[in-house]
């Protein structure tokens, strides 16, 4: 048994998960350095190698240990925490990481704007220095958890006279500020998982800046890289994704089967299994400290297979595929993939190739960073942001 495994065992012996108060348990886990073992001591970690975290998480999960609310994880764990760790001051570590880990404080991300999607660096939200504060004005979009969040990671333009990547800075924004207005953004499913966030003279103390003024792009890259490392690197059982739902329908409804749909289903099943194995291989690589570039490919394939399977599902339904369960506008904190109807999945999966980096951008990334193909000639790299065509 490794040292770390022994530490986890000792912790679990001292803090039996069964019946434990989740927040208290998670606070203790943080304080024991077992939140993120690759973080430094005092910041929820033990300075262990990054790869060690897998085994720790699995041990806690196996013991049935309490976890933070799901809304805490996507942005908080996946993006805010590593960024705060890398660029934050000791005071910022102290203030933000523990309640982030316990889920007492939910985080959201204020990056995308209506005019800045794939080209995030062109964003227009302005932050103007005013004494010890920055005053922020602008509009953000596609913000999950905004209506539940206490804090946001925010990128804003602090200098419009320099090329777009150079004029950005990165802040922690208080979502309780009176100038923050959150409106649900209704999607084509009828639901509003996301929000629009309007920032109107929001005051952000300079002490809540992460990284230097003008280095926001560099900080944001850390956030986004951590997002992509996490994607796809999870162990999933066979038929764990949407293909499982389709396979179940096939098994339970012989009357819906046709020869053409049969071959399509089998092709999709093979594709889904191939993606599962690809993700598993990525996970095995990360676990031994060999991160592979398959993360971008996994996200790309995830979107493709989800869209193909859900389109297939609607067709398999026949008459029932003409119907839709419910167009009511709701504001869920998680996407309900499995229990909604095929029509919902058909519409919702359309977002998989857009959210978190479009499939087109991912293909560029693979081509340039993995295959080493040359960038396209660029016209916008040396132009002051304010002079860009738009």
């Amino acid at each position, binding site marked *: 048994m490794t040292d770390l495994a022994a530490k986890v065992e000792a912790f679990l012996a001292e803090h039996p998960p069964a019946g434990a108060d989740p927040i208290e348990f998670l606070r203790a886990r943080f304080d024991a350095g077992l939140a993120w073992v690759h973080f430094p001591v005092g910041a929820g970690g033990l300075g262990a190698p990054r790869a060690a975290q897998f085994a720790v998480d699995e041990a806690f999960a196996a013991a049935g240990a309490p976890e933070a609310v799901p809304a805490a994880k996507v942005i908080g764990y996946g993006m805010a925490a590593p960024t705060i760790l890398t660029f934050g001051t000791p005071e910022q570590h102290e203030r933000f990481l523990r309640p982030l880990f316990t889920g007492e404080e939910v985080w959201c991300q204020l990056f995308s704007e*209506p005019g800045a999607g794939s080209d995030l660096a062109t964003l227009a939200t302005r932050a103007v220095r005013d004494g010890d504060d920055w005053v922020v004005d602008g509009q953000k979009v596609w913000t999950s958890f905004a209506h539940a969040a206490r804090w946001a990671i925010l990128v804003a333009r602090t200098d419009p006279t320099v090329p777009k990547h150079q004029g950005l800075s990165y802040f922690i924004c208080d979502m309780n500020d009176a100038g923050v207005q959150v409106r649900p953004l209704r999607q084509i499913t009828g639901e509003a998982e996301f929000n629009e966030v309007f920032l109107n003279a929001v005051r952000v103390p300079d002490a809540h800046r992460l990284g230097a003024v003008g280095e926001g792009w560099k900080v944001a890259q850390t956030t986004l890289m951590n997002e992509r490392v996490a994607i796809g690197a999870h162990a999933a059982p066979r038929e764990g994704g949407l293909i499982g739902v389709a396979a179940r329908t096939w098994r339970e409804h012989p009357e819906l089967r*046709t020869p*053409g749909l049969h071959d399509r289903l089998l092709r999709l099943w093979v594709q889904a299994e191939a993606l599962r194995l690809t993700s598993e291989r990525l996970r095995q690589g990360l676990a031994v400290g060999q991160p592979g570039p398959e993360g971008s490919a996994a996200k790309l394939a995830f979107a493709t297979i989800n869209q193909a399977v859900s389109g297939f599902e*609607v067709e398999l339904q026949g008459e029932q595929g003409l119907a839709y369960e419910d167009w009511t506008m709701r504001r869920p904190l998680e996407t309900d993939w499995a229990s909604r109807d095929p029509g919902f999945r058909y*519409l919702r999966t359309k*977002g998989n190739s857009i959210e978190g980096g*479009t*499939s087109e951008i991912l293909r560029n990334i693979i081509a340039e960073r993995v295959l080493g193909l040359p960038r396209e000639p660029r016209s916008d790299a040396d132009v002051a942001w304010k002079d860009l065509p738009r």
Partner: protein
Amino acid sequence: MSELLYSEVENDLRASVRDLLSDRSPWTAVLARTETDQPYDLALWRTLATELGLAGLLVPEELGGAGASAREVAVVLEELGRAVAPVPFLGSAVLATSALLAAGDAELLPELAAGNRTATLGVTYTTAPNAVFPASVHVHNGRLTGRIGSVVDLDVAEFVVVPAVGAAGPELHVVEVSSARVTPVVPLDLTRRISHLELDGVSGRLLATGDAAEQALRSALTTGAGLLAAEQLGLAQWCLDSTVDYAKTRYQFGRQIGSFQAIKHRLADLWAATSSALATSRAAASALATGEDVGVSVAVAAAYCSDVAVLAAEEALQLHGGIGMTWEHPVHLYLGRAKSSQLALGSPERHRAALATLIDLPA
């Protein structure tokens, strides 16, 4: 070889329908209507039916119609598809009208042609032309009892042409919708409604029996499938056009996104697919107009245009990026219509299976 170009008369017809729709039924209006209790625009339908005389295009002049052919109806459907217009044209002016024409009706047709009445065909909307005659409604002592799921445009129909089985076999009846129970379905396609129809000892007017009833139903479904391809074509063209426009006006990385080669190539492929959809749709409409080569032409157009419409709507959404995922953008209306239409009047696979028989390529 059938005539695949548009005639001048057809182009004029298109222009008048397009003008009306862009004036009266912009997508903002269509979207706003979807969550009200009047998802169909019956005022628009009356204008189309009576002022433009489109409800009676297929009806001979002696029955008060325009005596036009499937070619002109196809042009109208292209425009209705382009606008995802919420009117019961397909159910009334295509499906019910074709069934009544094939069955030799002279009573209801003049009413439909004049735009006084609206009807539909009492079959599940997924029914393919080569399906076996439906047996879910039975006739006893001249009264109809049974259930038909997911009937298109039934919400706003006053009459429904119902296939039923009597003592001597297939029959076709005209039934007043007011005498039946209608249960609306929440539809994936927000701009076209379907409802379940229940008949509990309802009296109908007998239209045809036996082979005549079977043939009339098949004729209506064949006409419907062949002309639905035209609607799918129009839908695909809207998706292509609006995406090309968006790609010219949306800037990312200091360039119009339409200058990126990956996007250009996808739109070029979509244009090529849409051009071919046009050719198959025209061939089907011409075949329906002349009665020559109907089976193959309709199966090809239905199989091809169904998938092109779905592809076009999916590509449109993807290339619009985030904005296309929002409720307040029209792409989802087209996506829902395209995906539902793919199931309608025979899936592509079903049409290919029909084709296999016609062209001697057995399984």
